[in-house]
Each structure stands twice: as C-alpha cells, then as structure tokens.
C-alpha cells in the first residue's frame, strides 16, 4: 500500500510539472484539505479544487515565473502518509526562488485527502517580495 501511495504522490508532482491541473486534482478527494505554511504569502488551510486554485496555485504562478516543486525524495511514513522533500524554484519579483520544502500527503483508498507543507518561507517571501 505504501508503495502505491508513493507512486500516487509522484504522479502529482509529475502532473503539476507539466501543468496538468486536471490530473493533479484527479488524484485527490473532492474536499481535499490543503494546509499551506502560514508564513507563505498564500498561507492557510483550504478545501477543494476551486479554493486551492484561487488561493494558492493561481497566486504562486503569478508571483513566480517558471515555478517548480521538485521532490528530491519521496518516502512512505506509514500506511496512509507519504513525505516528499525537495526544492521550490523559479523567479520572483526580487530574485530567484530557492526554497526547500517538506510536504506530507495523507492518502485514503488511493486518493489524497490532505496535504501539509513546511517550507523555507522566508527565502520564498524574500524572492517574491511579499
């Protein structure tokens, strides 16, 4: 099960990387909880595709030219949770984004139901000027 979950999470990063938002959300429950680090300009807890796109994805892609989230490592934590650690990159209004992240994904019955982020928020905010 944990190996399947790692594959699910990997597929989300791959879909995000090619800009396939439909595929990103196809791996998630309808009411997925998205917990963005409070220190991010888009920090908060959001639910569902519309809110996540409006409050997180849209603003990030506006603020960061060529935004990427590349996981260097994806690990199973237990039967339901997967950890990814990696690097955010791109170019903000004040310089290049170079912020490490850890994402914890909770998966139930093959669908992601929760996402939690801990990121190097200060470096991100410095780069985008927010």
């Amino acid at each position, binding site marked *: 099960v944990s190996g399947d979950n790692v594959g699910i999470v990997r597929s989300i990063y791959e879909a995000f990387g090619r800009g396939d938002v439909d595929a990103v959300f196809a791996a998630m429950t309808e009411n997925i909880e998205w917990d963005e*680090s*409070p*220190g*991010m300009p888009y920090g908060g807890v959001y639910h569902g595709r519309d809110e996540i796109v409006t409050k997180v994805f849209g603003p990030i892609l506006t603020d960061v030219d060529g935004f990427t989230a590349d996981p260097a490592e994806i*690990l199973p*934590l*237990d039967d339901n949770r997967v*950890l990814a*650690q990696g690097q955010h990159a791109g170019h903000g209004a*004040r*310089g290049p984004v170079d912020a*490490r*992240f*850890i994402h*914890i994904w909770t998966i139930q019955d093959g669908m992601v139901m929760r996402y939690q982020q*801990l*990121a*190097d*928020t*200060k*470096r991100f*905010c*410095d*780069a985008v000027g927010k």
Partner: protein
Amino acid sequence: MNACELMERSIERWNAHDEEGWSALFADDATLTGPGGVRGSGAQIVAMFYGLWQQSFPDNQVRVVRLVAEDGQAVNEAVFEGTHTATLSGPGGDVPATGRSVSIPFANVCEISGDRFTDFTLYFDQVELMTQLGVGMDAGRTT
C-alpha cells in the same frame, strides 16, 4: 541503538540541554541543513546549531508529535516551544531578545549510520517564527 531509539535519545538530550550528549549523537562528518541556507558538516555546524537555539531560547523544549523511523532513516514531526530571552543569531542577522514565547512546528528528516546521525535536515516556517516573535520580515533577512 536503532533509528527510533537514536531519535528519541536525541530529543531527550536536547530537552535536557545537554550539548555534549546531543552532539555525541552525530557522526564526525555529519551534514546539517536548515532554513535560510544553513548547511555544513562536522562538529562546528552541530555546535553552531545547538548554540543558536539553546542560547536564544534557554527554556526550550521539543514536543514530539509523531516519530517514524526505520533502519537508516528517521522522520520527526514535532513542535519547538520556548521563550526568546537572548539574541537569536540567524543566517541573515540578529534578532534581539523579545521575551516572547513561541510554538513552532518543525520536521527533521535524518539519515543514520550505526548509532549516529550522518545527515540532519530541519524544516520549519521562518516567517511564522518571526511573526510569533513580533518582528518584521526585515529581521534576519537572508537576501
């Protein structure tokens, strides 16, 4: 000592404010990485990291939320709680004592060989820390 026991020992020594006991759990060439571009290896970075947090939050305690470990690797989700009573010297500057208490979630991802850490990576929200300290984004600015 397995990976779980090593992580538990590390937290116990940290909370006891035992620098010698905590530092002894790192390999001589262990790498340590943290927010703000902190990265280095060896005893000097381990000592710098310990002093940075223990001196500025001398009453601090780490409260474990969840610890997952298996051979060679451990992940610790926890909360750092303490009172900021001395200057916090971060990678981008100093934040003088504020007297404020903080509660900061963090995560460690560690690589382990034998009885010691070989890689220790820390993740936490620096902006949230500054917010709880009541200081602006320019404090400790990194770029």
